[in-house]
């Protein structure tokens, strides 16, 4: 991000390389003996991480909007291309992918043997007996395939290619939930898949609609930058916008399209849940910024205020429902509904502060909720139950676990000093300048966030010691601390120095704002004197 990196690095096809490396890793995991599955997949993810760091170093924040661009014809008959490239927004999300995957691999080291599915057989299917050991190789192979898909979905600059990745990403996740999840994994996996497919179908219709429109105005294309130049009548814009929006709103998920998330988040294996909520859901909010706004600016302008209402409802509703949850993982899933309300608010408030905040929020939410899911996963792996009421006073026997739970929780409630505060405040302050009433209601959400986090902490970690029968409540092992520590270190660092991210995000956001034809409202009373 400094722009001082050697120039030859900038010419590398980074995105394709980063997409292929995990596939190579998958092949290796499949070919090599089981005992090598873990080290090989970890090594693969670290190679991706290193490559991503190099790519970020080569990225020029003030350069072209899309960088590391590649385009090859794929289905020439329909103008479909293999076209990739990143702007600042996609770059930071790919960086998030690259950070979270190794973390998930380290955290899930023994998932196949010790995960939740070992507790109870699946109630709904012809399930194997309890305690059956799942295929270690498949688990890590699925995660690596997922990484390719996740990088692809953010890197695609061809709408059709994006659609392909958008749907393809469901498949590894479906198997992660369905094969390695908790007791109701079948139900959750199918619900997740169907929900997403319905959204995907609407989007497919809109994608075809876009192609038809472009064909009407010249050559049919799916290339993003050429689609932004189309002149689309307002009613058509609204129809196409809704096609994309509903798909993304389900993905994100925005209230009231959220009910698949608590089930999927709760039943997914911990690593899967981190990638699901941390990254897959971001595809939805990323889609708002990348597709809904630049392609259909008029529709966005007309529908924006209604979406803001949905987001504010989501913030308060998600928080209140989170408070009423007895299942720890469902609780975290509902907090995410509230957080996605904030992100949506930032996307549709149409100020550069709010949008930069929203993108930053996507990254920070991945780190923060990732950490929270991991710590809760460690707790559940010990207690063998997700029920809040089965735990009490755990801090007495597992102080490190409790401490990390608290830090992750504090990041979820956006404590200043942690990176989540920066993004949440940017969203709020940016929203306030255009929609003060919405900002006021959303700000009340910060009280509710404190309530659900501290209450969950109090119920599980404080009070007199009481643990589930037969559970061995030992403190965190070195490997577990090692998995969470990078997330917390990043959140602290970015809390005090988010500039490396904002420097990259802001130009991309400015370009988006320009696409929509919006400007930040000027201060109403005076220009600052400084």
């Amino acid at each position, binding site marked *: 991000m400094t722009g001082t990196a050697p120039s030859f690095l900038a010419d590398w096809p980074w995105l394709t390389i980063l997409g292929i490396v995990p596939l190579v890793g998958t092949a290796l995991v499949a070919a090599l003996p089981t005992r090598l599955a873990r080290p090989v997949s970890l090594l693969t993810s670290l190679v991706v991480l290193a490559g991503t760091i190099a790519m970020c170093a080569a990225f020029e924040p003030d350069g072209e909007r899309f960088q590391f661009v590649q385009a090859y014809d794929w289905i020439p008959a329909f103008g479909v291309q293999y076209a990739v490239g990143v702007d600042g927004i996609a770059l930071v999300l790919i960086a998030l992918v690259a950070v979270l995957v190794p973390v998930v691999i380290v955290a899930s080291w023994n998932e196949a043997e010790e995960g939740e599915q070992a507790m109870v057989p699946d109630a709904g299917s012809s399930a194997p007996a309890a305690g059956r050991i799942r295929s270690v190789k498949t688990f890590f192979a699925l995660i690596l395939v997922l990484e390719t898909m996740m990088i692809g979905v953010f890197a695609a600059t061809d709408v059709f290619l994006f659609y392909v990745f958008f749907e393809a990403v469901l498949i590894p996740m479906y198997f992660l939930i369905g094969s390695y999840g908790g007791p109701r994994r079948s139900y959750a996996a199918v619900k997740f898949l169907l929900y997403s497919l319905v959204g995907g179908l609407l989007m497919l219709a809109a994608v075809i609609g876009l192609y038809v429109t472009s064909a009407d105005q010249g050559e049919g294309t799916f290339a993003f930058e050429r689609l932004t130049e189309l002149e689309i009548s307002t009613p058509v814009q609204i129809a196409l916008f809704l096609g994309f929006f509903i798909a993304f709103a389900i993905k994100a998920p925005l209230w009231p399209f959220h009910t698949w998330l608590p089930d999927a988040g709760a039943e997914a294996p911990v690593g899967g849940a981190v990638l699901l909520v941390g990254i897959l859901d971001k595809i939805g909010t990323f889609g708002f910024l990348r597709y809904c706004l630049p392609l259909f600016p008029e529709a966005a302008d007309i529908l924006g205020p209604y979406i803001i209402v949905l987001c504010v409802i989501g913030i308060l509703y998600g928080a209140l429902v989170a408070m009423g949850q007895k299942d720890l993982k469902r609780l975290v899933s509902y907090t995410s509904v509230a957080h996605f309300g904030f992100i949506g608010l930032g996307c549709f408030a149409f100020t550069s502060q709010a949008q930069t905040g929203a993108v930053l929020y996507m990254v920070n939410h991945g780190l923060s909720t990732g950490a929270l899911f991991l710590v809760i996963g460690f707790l559940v792996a010990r207690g063998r139950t997700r029920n809040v009421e089965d735990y009490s006073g755990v801090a007495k026997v597992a102080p490190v676990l409790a401490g990390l739970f608290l830090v992750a929780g504090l990041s979820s409630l956006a404590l200043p000093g942690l990176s989540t505060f920066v993004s949440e405040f940017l969203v709020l302050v940016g929203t306030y300048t255009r929609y003060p009433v919405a900002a006021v209601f959303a700000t009340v959400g910060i009280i509710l966030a404190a309530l659900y986090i501290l209450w969950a902490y109090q119920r599980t970690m404080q009070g007199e010691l009481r643990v589930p029968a037969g559970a061995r409540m030992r403190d965190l092992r070195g490997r577990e601390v090692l998995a969470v520590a990078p997330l917390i270190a990043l959140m602290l660092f970015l809390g005090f120095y988010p500039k490396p991210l904002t420097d990259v995000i802001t130009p991309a956001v400015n370009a988006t704002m320009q696409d929509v034809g919006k400007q930040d409202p000027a201060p109403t*009373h005076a220009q600052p004197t400084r």
Partner: protein
Amino acid sequence: MSTLLAVSEPATEYVAATGTLSSLWVLLALPAFGATTILLLRGRTRTWGPYLAIATCGAAFAWALVSFLELRGLENRSVDLHLWSWIPVNGFQVDAGLLYDPLSATFTLLITGVGLLIHIYSLGYMEHDERRWLFFGYLNLFVTAMLLLVLGNSYLALYVGWEGVGLASYLLISWYFWKPSAATAGKKAFIANRVGDVGLSLAIMVMFATLGTTSFEGVFGSAEQLTAGAATAIGLLLLLGACGKSGQFPLHTWLPDAMEGPTPVSALIHASTMVTAGVYLIARSMPVYVQSPDAQLVVSIIGAITLVIGCVIGCVYDDIKKVLAYSTVSQIGYMFLAVGIPGAGAIAILHLLTHGFFKACMFLSAGSVMHGMNDQVDMRRFGALRKVMPVTFGCMLVGYLAIIGIPPFAGFFSKDLIIEHAFNQGGTRGAVLGTVALVGAGITAFYMTRLMLMTFFGKKRWTADVHPHESPAVMTGPMVLLGVGSVVSGFLLVRGDALVHWLEPVLPEQEQEHVFEAITVSIMTVGVSLLGVLAAYLLVHRKAVPHFPPVAVSPLTTAARNNLYLDSLNESLLMRPGQYLTRMLVWFDNRGIDGAVSAVAAGVGGSSGRLRRLQTGFVRSYALSIFAGAMLVAGSLLLVRIGP
């Protein structure tokens, strides 16, 4: 137009830091280093962690002292230290930077000075706690955050410190986390503070929306351009934040509960430093408040209401720490009252400083009593302790004389000036606020005398298993030093109006009317206080103190014992409806939204089930449907051809 521009020139200009002051960040880095080291190495710092914490706090005090001396030698005493660009997004530019001026310099001395003494005291008080190292880590964390709060050069930087102290407070209140009451008290404190934070957040948003900046320099420089409405909005929102942090009505109920924390915490965080941050916030924002007399009046009124509430409830509790907590609520009420009076901001800070000494002194003395009495807090089980704990008694006595305002003890000077300024506003406002402050002084004298009599005088009412003893020197030392501060600080700070002149660049004085002469007010104040002492003597000391609180009491006493029903009000207005709402929404989410989704899924499933029946396997029926389809296609083609 040109005159208008001249008016809009910034009223405050900060100069860049030079010399020693350019490394002012060290002040923050020292305790931050201590906290980080201890929290990361955890149990490995068991032996040396506490000493590291004390050393960093001591070094920070020395650094604060050096910086203070440096600042005194400067012509322009508002020094700005830019550190790095923190949140830069187009028009929203927030820098990480420090502002060192007379106000923040004063606070850094108070925080590190009292902080150091309490660190040392904790060495003795927490001696038997096996997580002692963690306690010191948290204390250092608190000192770091509190220093950031008073040194930050923008509202956002202040906000980081603001929540940081809230976190430290939360961690330390729920120190004995296995006690449900302690865990609940910590959570309550954090939530009440968050309610206030909504105010602070919104105030910052209004500032950005109206002035386009959140730095002190930017906001204060253009504060004159705010309309009265915007200034009032900012003022009231900041006040909400201040009320949360400083335990002011209606957000004060967390502060007495915060006494669940170890006593050094009560002394440092919940008496002398953190809870006064609200006063700092309002004093710091004076250029905004100057634009809105209405907001200032509300500040004073909130202060007046709180000081009465604190006094009244303080009279009925038997828990020594709770009495002190309510007296803190009440004394901070005085500070709010003062900081809302135009031109009396410096007086509020004066009371804040003297209170910092005498209240810390009293809390530490109370801690010393508890240390000797097996951690009991019920004053009905004390009595006659002055002989067995002479040093503790002496310190408590000094603090007592200071808080009830007997000259020449510190509290006299500050409280007297507040009452004087309150009256001298003139009119109804002056009469009402002045009278409230005066009556409050009388009630303060009453309940404080009651505390002294029940604890140190009368007969022994100890439970069988206690063997009271004087505390070790590591505890009494800091107490004595704070006691000395409680005696001399008031006199030193008002001599030649030292503090008022020192704070002049930040909190300008204002000419006031003279409703009463200074000496008249002094005589009234001391007179009313002595009446309170006399009343307490007659009511408490003349008859034996029963072991259990009397049951047949006046409605006011009953109400006061129930915190004037404010907790119950909060419970029935917010907590219970909130719980019902939550339960209702959970039900709605499962049945309503997800129910609708499931219904759609079931509908689709049902329809496809019916569709499936079309697949009969009979060639004839397939042939029929092919035929029907062909007819449909042919028909439509014909229709299109024939049509227009």
